[in-house]
């Protein structure tokens, strides 16, 4: 494959490209779903292809195909240059890239058990046991268990002499119980909604999730929600647990800090960002308790790797320090425009997509609170857990989230259960209302394997490290 990449680079240079990146990506995935006692999905998929991205006449072009022969490499390289020339007919300034160190190496996600080598029977057997442990409650009509594993190998070379061979392993899964009565349905999930939690890891990660252990509680809570009162609307102090807080970080910090959005290159699709460049270093994003990094180096994060898809080494980039906004995530092009080094966040969805600025692991750093102490200090507040729905505006300011469950906090304990909770807010006001973050002991990584962006649409696998945190005087429920 090294020769194939070199051939693509040579052809592109001969055809007039001033910069070229070539990637061969081989992806193997397995996904399983067991539902109501039977496996309803057992899917293995493999895909492999070559993507060539070039700059010619100062503009970008990209072509991708599955023909991994010298002829295929030549065709992709020539097509990418032709497309770049077409792009140049609607260009103003030539594309500039921030400098990147020359890299050369091999990396594989640290793992104990190759998740693709575990027998199918064992995987389905684990899911069947976890799913079965949710059964037996008359109102729980749907019980599901999920497992997904992935191996993605990227062979990368660019015209600046960088090259690498990187293999990422991912693994994860979860369970969900749905209770149904009179047209109403209530879901409880574990360890997170929408098919569970995911990490860059081997199969050992899945076996530590404890799905079978948690299954009876999950089913019980789903059934209990049917009889629970609707969460009352009003302004409340809330503590948000990890899974929901991860999505809060994702939507109201992770996306607004994408420098390509800030520069308007996603304007016609996902939107822009309120976080314009004059705010860098001076904008108060949140309270002093809010410290956030973009860290592609943290072990097991779903956004963890060694090099990004432009060959830039993984970094830990400060984003918010004591509430003050201090950094973006960027690729080489957007970083050059700002005059800073790339944040190493250029990531693509497979061989047939270009790298975009994507989240790595956007982590809210732990504070010092014990969760029990925080509950005891939040009498009359609400504890909100597990995302159910999300929506945020095109500049990432006005958001509304729904969670699977809310519990009233009384006397330091979780009390009355409420169904259909939601909360809404304005991004900087909301993070400004954060006055406590739990400590290291409660800090946990959540993986989001379905972050959408770009045209054609791409799905990124990103991570968020969080600990439960408290927010004061938040609008819970819908204003009437």
């Amino acid at each position: 494959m090294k020769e194939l990449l070199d051939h693509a680079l040579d052809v592109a240079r001969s055809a007039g490209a001033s910069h070229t990146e070539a990637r061969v990506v081989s992806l193997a995935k397995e996904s399983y779903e067991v539902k109501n006692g039977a496996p309803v999905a057992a899917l293995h998929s493999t895909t492999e292809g070559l993507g060539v991205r070039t700059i010619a006449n100062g503009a970008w072009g990209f072509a991708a195909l599955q023909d991994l022969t010298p002829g295929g490499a030549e065709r992709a390289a020539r097509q990418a240059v032709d497309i770049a020339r077409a792009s140049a007919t609607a260009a103003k300034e030539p594309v500039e890239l921030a400098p990147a160190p020359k890299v050369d190496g091999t990396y594989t996600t640290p793992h104990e058990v190759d998740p693709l080598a575990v027998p199918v029977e064992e995987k389905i057997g684990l899911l069947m046991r976890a799913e079965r442990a949710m059964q037996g409650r008359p109102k729980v009509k749907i019980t599901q268990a999920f497992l997904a594993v992935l191996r993605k190998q990227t062979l990368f070379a660019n015209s600046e002499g960088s090259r690498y061979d990187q293999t990422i392993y991912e693994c994860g899964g979860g369970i969900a119980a749905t209770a149904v009565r009179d047209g109403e349905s209530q879901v409880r999930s574990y360890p997170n909604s929408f098919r569970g939690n995911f990490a860059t890891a081997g199969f050992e990660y899945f076996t530590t999730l404890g799905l079978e252990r948690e299954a009876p509680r999950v089913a019980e809570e789903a059934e209990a929600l049917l009889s629970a009162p609707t969460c009352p609307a009003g302004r409340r102090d809330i503590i948000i647990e990890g899974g929901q807080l991860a999505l809060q970080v994702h939507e109201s910090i992770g996306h607004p800090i994408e420098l390509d959005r800030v520069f308007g290159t996603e304007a016609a699709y996902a939107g822009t960002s309120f976080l314009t460049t004059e705010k860098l270093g001076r904008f108060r994003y949140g309270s002093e308790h809010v410290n956030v990094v973009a860290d592609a180096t943290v072990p097991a994060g779903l956004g963890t790797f060694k090099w990004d898809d432009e060959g830039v080494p993984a970094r830990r980039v400060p984003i918010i320090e004591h509430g003050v906004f201090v950094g973006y995530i960027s690729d080489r092009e957007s970083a050059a425009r700002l005059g800073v080094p790339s944040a190493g966040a250029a990531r693509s969805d497979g061989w047939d997509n270009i790298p975009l600025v994507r989240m790595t692991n956007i982590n809210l750093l732990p504070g010092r609170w014990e969760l029990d102490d925080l509950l005891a200090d939040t009498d009359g507040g609400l504890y909100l857990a597990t995302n159910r729905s999300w929506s945020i505006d095109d500049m990432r300011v006005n958001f509304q989230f729904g969670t699977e469950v809310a519990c009233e906090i009384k006397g330091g304990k979780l009390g009355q259960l409420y169904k259909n909770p939601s909360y809404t807010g304005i991004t900087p006001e909301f993070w400004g209302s954060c006055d406590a973050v739990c400590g290291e002991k409660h800090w946990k990584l959540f993986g989001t394997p379905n972050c959408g962006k770009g045209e054609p649409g791409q799905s990124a696998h990103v991570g968020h490290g969080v600990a439960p945190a408290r927010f004061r005087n938040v609008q819970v429920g819908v204003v009437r």
Partner: protein
Amino acid sequence: MKNREEALDLLEKALSAATAAGCDAADAVLFSGSSALTRFANDIIHQNVAREGETLSLRAVRGKRTGVVHTDVLTDAGIASAAKRAAEIAASAAEDPEFPGIIASPTAEPCGIFDEETAGASPETRARAVCEIIGRIEAGGAIASGSLSTAARSIAVANTAGTCQFDRKTSVGLNIVAMADTAAGCARLSAARLSEMDAVERAEFALRKCLGSRDAGEIEPGEYTVVLEPAAVAAMIQFLARLGFGALAMQQGQSCLQGKIGEKVFDERISIVDDARDPVGSPFAFDGEGVPTRRVELITDGVMRGVLYDTKTAAKDGAASTGHGGVPPNPSGPHSSSLLVSPGNATLDEMIASTGRGLLVSNFHYTNVAERSTATITGMTRYGLFEIVDGEVARPVKNLRFTQSILAALDDVEAVGATRERFGSAVVPALKIGRFRFTGKSDH
């Protein structure tokens, strides 16, 4: 892209390989095609991509056990390896008592629209159209963003029960956003042929919306009469289909229209069919299981008439699949393929003129389900929100968040637009709705 003969030959190889691997039965789907997308922002082309490829989906069946492999290694060895793997998965999987088996379907007459000019569109063709769009919007004092895509795709399905299907289509997608400060206007087009695209007309539409949205004023959330332009209606109808029309949701007791067949659920001016063969949408002859797509009356004069089936949900209800299945394994069940909402008799101007005080909504943004059983969705308005006062568009206002039950909205229809627009697989008119609930506001 593979033609019919090539595609079906390849599927025959895959089915033979599955049988040789010890399967009782199998079905296979081949996707083949190419696509290209030219993306622009800040008045330049900033991303410009093309890709081509083929993917085989092979489902192996052993009794009530199934295993599915997706692969793009389509050599003889690659196909044999996929078949062996699928058979191994099926052998290892537990039984699914509800698996209906592989069924034979009659060959469907192809109805996809395939246009050679669109299939062969060059990067220069797309760039010329984009330059025209940028030129118009720049000249109007705004900034242009968007994308223009062209694609040609074929799908073939075959199974060991004798099903043999092939169809192909081309598609064009145009999305234009004109922006001036925080004001923005949008125009879109979904079509089968490039010749259907009037890029300049679309650019001018987006520009007019943008310029009309400048200096947006404050408005408080609350309940308003709304005139929803087709883009907003399309988003709402697509959520309704997801939450209400699939047989799996019905069988699980989760449909927002549970037990409503034969009942009046919406205003009598609302009629919705799913008809994947109607050329007004994006016609295609069969579904992911090779079952010919059927026209299904979902809502007729406000009364619920039907649901969408795949083979599994149909078998459970003793019905026939309506041709709305996905490519196996598809645990999410049947889905809509072409939602057509009947037009009414009102023009957009008449809807506005008949409104004392209300809002004209151009688009929704980032809509999501807030509560399933009432089909309550939440999202933001985008690309132009205008206050209507005494029958006239009085002023642009800043975007609002809505949280609204679709069921309640469609039962409170005051007028239906006479013309329809296509957004992806939905073809819809504008709607005027008596009360629509806005629950938050933004600063732009």
